[in-house]
Structures are given as structure tokens and as C-alpha cells.
């Protein structure tokens, strides 16, 4: 189905009906707003339960006969294991502060996309199946029984939440819809009801080490293609290192960046940056994925995929791990990794070999973000930069949800951008930093068949970009997330076609003055630099 024109999608009605309650609203699984069902082979490959072929638009989802017990026992078990889940089932007062904070609600107007109602989808079953009042008074207290319709509603709406946590910033009790969605998806996974855009990357990652399923030789070949591009545009030959034992640092980044435009330019940027500072590092083809789609499946699956990072660091004997630009990857590293797979006592507290800075904030996890690392390099004057090469760019920065709200990395990438670009403009307050808007395709929802929902969900982000485009002539949207680099280009194409998407390290590399480099006539994309930029360079 072709996505309707922006003029059509701009018409959104946010007024729910007066008298019909949300429980009576029929469920409509509309094309363009749901992702395809998980390939049973992928589900089976990682040993997740009840792998089966099914069609979300069909009446019969081919559930196992005791599906209800499986889900209810799953809920009972999770209520006992996660205080967040138990508490968030009990304490919401439905004040509505979260309602208009969700990008999917803003973009679709569907009331069940209000975070409070998304949570009520689950809470109503919690009340109806686990509380006395709910069993006695049912509808009166917003309780209902678990039925197939409810289950389908869960599936549709928990895969219409990107776990961005924006609502939790505004909730007076800190109720985090991401936690609810995470639990909801875990429960759906007990019945094999994942989406393929998550399940297949998970299986790929388990087997080949990365979501895309790139086998070791292919991974290396791809990197070599990018090195050839660097040789052509920059004139510097870089020796790559893969699976090299004894390197000081293991570098891990999402595989999306070695595969697709525009992520590849960020990948090139990493290789140039590390060559420029003479970093003793290695890539790994085994731990070749920074992201973790297990996080969108279940906490166990997240742990299984994440385990490769420490395991590979141990095998290669590195001192610490450096991580590339990615959103949810950093929520996993910051809030889960050490707990799940630590303690990483075989590593050392991260110390920049170039500046001597010890990253105290990462002394237990032993993993540092590339923006923290680069900001430290710039601060110590270790990079030779010519920001005027980026003068034709008017840049704004999109805070990815997870580094913003699951970590708080706000200033480091800004510091880097401001040192490699001369024209930086912030989007309006309320749309940046901890209040940033999702790209519309996070948490595994970047599927092609999901295009309509992504354009709707990404509207608030795009709207803010359009604002700075019109006001300041912004033509470049920088980000530190591989998923963003996949989701934002089509979003911009749709809502703000004049704006291109770049990675922060791509901007760094374009400004980087490397030893023995050519006179730069083009950027890493092979696009010719405007003349005045070249003139300035020739003068040097």
C-alpha cells in the first residue's frame, strides 16, 4: 500500500469519542501500520517457544490450545520478577499527563496510542485476572478478561510503541511505558508472536554475530569496500584489523553502519578517526553487532546476544571496549550489560591511550561511547580539524531516545558537532535532549511494510526539523544512532525533503585533516565540496 501524501497524514483528529469506551472500540489491523509476523525458522533457531507461521490479518492466529494459561502464568511470573511491572500495574492515576507526549498518538490520533491506554491494555487484564475488585466489578474498574481480541490488541499496540520513554519523563510517578511494552512483548513471545523485523535479526545476530547476518568474510569485504572509498576520496590507505588478539581496544558498532547508506559514511568515519590518532584497536566479526534486538524480544534474549561483547573482549585480550553510535545499544550497555553479563573483571577501567583520560563513569562496565571518547580527544586538542569543510552544512542534532533518556548523553555529541561544524542550530525546546522525539522506527519497527506508521510516528520529530529548516536553513540532521540513520532519511524524504541525515562521526571525518591526505574535493559520500570550501583548503 502506498503511503498517502503528507497533506493527508497532516490531518489528525486527537479527540476521542464522548460515550464509547476504548474497550468497545473494535481493533483494526491496518496495512502500513503493522509489521509482518516472525518467520518461524528464526524463532525456532534461537529456541524461542511456539514458532509457527501465522498472519496478523487472519482471524486465526494459530495459538497453542493453552495460550491463555501461558500468558497468565507469564504475567504472574513477571510481576514477581520486576518491581517496575508490578508497581506500574498498580499506581497509575490516569492523570493524562502522558497522553499527548507519545509520537504515535500525536501522529495517528489513535487514543490507544496514548501511553496511559497502551498500558491499560495490559493493566485491564491484570485487574481482571489478578485482583479481587477486577473480578467482582469488571468494567466498573476498567478490568477485563484475557481474550483473543485483547491479545491481538496487545500485539498491534505493543508493536506500535518504540520504547522511547518520552512519556516517562512527564509521568509524576515515573511510570515507563517502555517497561510495559517490554513486558507485553515478552508475553507475546511466549506464544511465538514476534514480528519478523525483530525475530530474524535476532536469529542472524545469534548465528553470525550481527543483525544483518553478514558472515565473517562478507563483513571484512564490506569494510574493505569502504576503505577503498576512503582511499579514493581522502587519499589515505588504512589497514583494517579484524579479530586481532592483543589489541588494546575492541570497537563494536551496529552492523547497519557497514551495510547501508548513510550509515557507511559513519563507519568510514570511525576507521579514519582511529587511523588519525593511531589507535591500537580491532574490529570483531563475531561481536560485530552493537545493537541488540534481543532487547525487543525478552530480557533473556537480550542477555544471550549481549554476551558476545564481553566474551569477545576476553578472548581477544583487549583492555576495554569502545562502542559506536547507536541508540538502544547504549541503553543496553548503560543499564543492562554489566548486570546481565558482568562483572568484566578481565578488563581494565577505560583509559584513553591518546589523552590519558580515565573514564571513571564507565569503570565497571568498561565500555565507552564514541562521542565521549571523541569529545575527550577534541578537548585535549588531539584532532587536527578543519570545520570549514562542513561550512555548506547547517546542522541540527537529533537526540536518540535511548542515549538521552536511558543514559543522559546530551552534551558530548553537541560538543563534537560544534567543533567540527561552524553552523549548528538546536531544534525547539521540548523536542530535544530528554524531551526528544523518536524517529518513528525504534525498538525494531523500521520495517518497510510499516511505512505508514513510521511516517505518522515520526511526524513530531520531522515537524521540529522542518521548523529549523525554515528558520535557519538547516539542511543536515546529525544523529548518533544507526537505527536513526535507517529511519530518518525516508522520514525526511517524506516530511522535509531538503534535509539529509548524517552520523556525528561522519561529520568528524569530513573535518579531519589526515596525514598524507589528498586535497579534499569531495566528502565521504563522494559529493563535491562547494568551491569556497576548497579554496580555503588550498590556502592552507
Amino acid at each position, binding site marked *: 500500500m502506498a503511503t498517502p501524501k503528507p*497533506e493527508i497524514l*497532516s490531518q489528525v483528529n*486527537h479527540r*476521542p469519542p*464522548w*460515550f*464509547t*469506551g*476504548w*474497550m468497545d472500540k473494535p481493533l483494526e489491523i491496518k496495512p502500513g501500520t503493522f509489521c509482518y509476523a516472525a518467520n518461524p525458522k528464526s524463532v525456532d533457531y534461537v529456541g524461542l517457544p511456539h514458532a509457527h507461521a501465522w498472519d496478523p490479518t487472519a482471524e486465526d492466529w494459530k495459538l497453542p490450545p493453552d495460550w491463555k494459561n501461558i500468558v497468565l502464568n507469564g504475567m504472574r511470573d513477571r510481576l514477581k520478577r*520486576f*518491581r*517496575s511491572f*508490578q*508497581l506500574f500495574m498498580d499506581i497509575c492515576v490516569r492523570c*493524562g499527563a502522558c497522553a499527548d*507526549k507519545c509520537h504515535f498518538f*500525536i501522529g495517528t490520533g489513535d487514543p490507544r496510542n496514548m501511553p*496511559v491506554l497502551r498500558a491499560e491494555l495490559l493493566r485491564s487484564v491484570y485487574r481482571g485476572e489478578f*485482583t479481587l475488585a477486577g473480578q467482582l466489578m469488571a468494567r*466498573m474498574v*476498567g478490568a477485563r478478561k484475557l481474550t483473543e481480541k485483547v491479545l491481538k490488541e496487545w500485539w498491534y499496540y505493543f508493536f506500535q510503541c518504540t520504547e522511547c520513554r518520552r512519556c516517562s*519523563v512527564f509521568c*509524576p510517578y*515515573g511510570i*515507563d511505558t517502555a517497561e510495559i511494552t517490554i513486558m507485553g512483548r515478552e508475553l507475546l513471545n511466549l506464544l511465538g508472536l514476534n514480528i519478523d523485523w525483530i525475530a530474524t535479526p535476532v536469529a542472524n545476530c545469534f*548465528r*553470525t554475530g550481527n543483525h544483518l547476518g553478514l558472515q*565473517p568474510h562478507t563483513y571484512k569485504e564490506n569494510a574493505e569496500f569502504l576503505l577503498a572509498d576512503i582511499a579514493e576520496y581522502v587519499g589515505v590507505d588504512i589497514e583494517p584489523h*579484524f*579479530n*586481532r588478539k592483543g589489541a588494546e581496544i575492541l570497537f563494536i558498532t551496529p552492523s547497519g553502519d557497514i551495510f547501508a547508506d548513510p550509515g557507511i559514511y559513519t563507519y568510514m568515519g570511525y576507521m579514519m578517526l582511529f587511523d588519525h590518532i593511531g589507535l591500537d584497536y580491532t574490529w570483531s566479526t563475531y561481536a560485530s553487532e552493537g545493537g541488540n534486538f534481543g532487547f525487543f524480544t525478552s*530480557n533473556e534474549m537480550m*542477555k544471550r546476544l549481549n*554476551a*558476545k561483547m564481553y566474551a569477545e573482549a576476553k*578472548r581477544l585480550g583487549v583492555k576495554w571496549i569502545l562502542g559506536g553510535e547507536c541508540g538502544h545499544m547504549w541503553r543496553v550497555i*548503560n543499564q543492562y550489560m*554489566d*548486570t546481565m553479563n*558482568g*562483572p568484566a573483571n578481565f578488563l581494565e577501567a577505560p583509559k584513553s591511550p591518546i589523552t590519558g*583520560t580515565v573514564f571513571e563513569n564507565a569503570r*565497571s*562496565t568498561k565500555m565507552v561511547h564514541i562521542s*565521549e571518547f571523541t569529545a*575527550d580527544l577534541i578537548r585535549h586538542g588531539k584532532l587536527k580539524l578543519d570545520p570549514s569543510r562542513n561550512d555548506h552544512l547547517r546542522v541540527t542534532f537529533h537526540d536518540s531516545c535511548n542515549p538521552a*533518556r*536511558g*543514559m*543522559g548523553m*546530551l552534551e*558530548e555529541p553537541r560538543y563534537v558537532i560544534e567543533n567540527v561544524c561552524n553552523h549548528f542550530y538546536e531544534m525547539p525546546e521540548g*523536542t530535544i535532549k*530528554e524531551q526528544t522525539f523518536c524517529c518513528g522506527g525504534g525498538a525494531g519497527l523500521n520495517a518497510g511494510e510499516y511505512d505508514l506508521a513510521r511516517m505518522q510516528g515520526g*511526524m513530531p520529530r520531522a515537524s*521540529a526539523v*522542518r*521548523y529549523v529548516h525554515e528558520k535557519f536553513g538547516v539542511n543536515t540532521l546529525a544523529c548518533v544512532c544507526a537505527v536513526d540513520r535507517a529511519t530518518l532519511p525516508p522520514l525526511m524524504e517524506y*516530511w522535509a525533503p531538503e534535509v539529509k541525515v548524517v552520523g556525528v562521526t561522519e561529520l568528524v571525518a569530513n573535518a579531519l585533516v589526515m596525514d598524507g591526505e589528498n586535497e579534499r574535493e569531495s566528502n565521504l559520500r563522494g559529493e563535491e565540496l562547494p568551491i569556497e570550501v576548497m579554496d580555503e583548503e588550498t590556502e592552507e
Partner: protein
Amino acid sequence: MGFPGFVAAFAAVIVLMVIPLVGVWAANMTTFFGVVVPYAAIAIFLAGLVIRVIKWGQSPVPFRIPTTCGQEKSMPWIKTNCIDNPTNNFTVLIRMALEILCFRSLFRNTAMDFREGRVYYGSAKWLWLFALAFHYSFLVVLLRHLRFFTDPIPFFVTLLENLDGFFEIGLFPFTWLPGMMLSGMVLLGAASYLFLRRIVIPQVRYISLTNDWFPLLLIIHIAATGVLMRYLIKVDITAVKELTMGIVTFNAKAPEGIGVLFYIHVFLVGTLLAYFPFSKLMHAPGIFLSPTRNLANNSRAVRHVNPWNPKVKTHDYEEYEEEFRELMVEAGLPVDKPLEEGAE
């Protein structure tokens, strides 16, 4: 549930007022409504509260998941937002205090304005303001009620009464009313605002359940009966104090002639107490335990332990190399086991 939920809640509150009215007026069941009901309500409240909080406490916090709302602590030259992104227990305490005492997150509230695919955000402090007014006036009213349960009355209760009564004395057109208390009026006003916004704002109306309307209506009627008793339909205050002091000294007897309005007031308060542990009113103790607010964002510096950290099946490097060894060697990638040994 939306609007129909309101009707159910309203009917429930009416019934709850009729019960003591009939019971005391027609059947003179003053001991039941004056002694049994308060004790039962307090018992249910305390037991329910404790059981509920213990239940919460029994679920562990497997992961450190604070919602970070400001700059992390990374390098010393980058200014950390230690309140919205706390890194130690002390700063967590500040964050929690601001959250609990000042409703900091609610203060952030914005209102979306949507016009032709453009999203605009405006300030929206009304909910914060009235929520704050509601809770604080409720607190003051509660503290003022200590005068019924203490003898002698502690100085701070008297002081509070003086402050509370100071502002409104002689305010036109209420000059004829005796010692007007600000808190009761604010409570009534703020609760009414919270109630009205559930009717007026379409999205909030849509999400409101019977058990959202009910406690608000209950509190409004509690405040209203209280205000009525104080200013218009007087009850025998000496007899009331005799009863309330009897309750705290476990020697309760309902004296004659207090007035039925008092029993209605007490029955509604009793209902609120008994309802509290089974309802969303548990947000009050809940906020203290909220893992997105009460944890420091320091899980990269200090390891957080998950008590049930599961053992999981991973795909280790050996298995990986086993599958791809030939291709790796061909591509010039180092391998742990040479090809000869690995090949069949």
C-alpha cells in the same frame, strides 16, 4: 470507560451518603457508624497498605532503569545535571524529594497544539498547580484534624489553624462566616478542578474509569460535608471530641446528639481509608518505590546486581568459528583452530 464511569461513581457516593443517613437517623446506629466503622476502616487501611507495600517490596529491581532527564556524569569538564540524572544516593534523594514534595515531573508538563501537521508545544502548568494545591491543602486539613485526636492540642496544630484561618477572615462576601479556613476551600476547589478536567478534556475523559471519578467525588463530598459542618449545619463539637478521643484511647462510645452530618462525613472518610489500599490512591506510597526515579544512573560505574540473573544459552566463539572457519581462513581472518584440525 469514559463518561459512563462518572455516573456509576456518582451513584456510589450517593449510596454511601444514604447508608449512614438512614442508619443513624432512622435506626440510631450511632455506635456502628461512630465506632465500628472508623475502627474497621483504619484496620483495613493499615493492613491493606502494609500488605500491598510488602508485595511490591518482594518483587526485586533486576535492572537499574532510571529515566535520565538531564546530562549524565561523564567527563569533569561537562556539567552534570545531578538532580535529573543523579549518580549517587544523595542526589537521588534530592530528585525524590523534588518529585514527592514539588511534583517535579508534572511541572515539566507541556500541552500539544496540533495544526496542519505542525506540532507546537505550550506550557501547561494547571494540572501541576492544582495537583499541588490539592495535596497540600489535604495535608493541612488532615493535620488540623489532629485537634480532635490530641489533648492537649499540640502547638503546631494551633499554629496551623491560625495561619490557615488568617487569610480568609472577613473576606467579602463571607464576612458573616466564623473563622474561615483557607485549606478546606482550596481542597474543595482543587478537587473540583481535577474533577472537571476529567469531564472537559476529551482525552482525559476517555481514559477515566469509575475508579478515577469515585475517589475524587468521595473527597469532594468529604470536604463539602466538613465545610458544611463547620459553617452551616453545626454539630455538637464537644460530643465529637469526646468520641474521637475515645477512639484514640480505645475507649470509644458514641455520645448522644452529635448530628447526622457528622456520621455521613465519617462514613465517607472510612470508605476512603478502606478503599485506599485497593486503588490507585496507592500512588502515594508507590512513588517512593518507582525504579525510574529512585535509582542513580551509575550502572556503568558500579555494577547493579540482579538477584535472579538467568543462566542463558549463548552462541560462543567456538561454535561460530566452527561454522565459518573455512570462509574465515579464505578471507584472511585469524582463527583459533587451524583449518586442518577443524576440517572434516
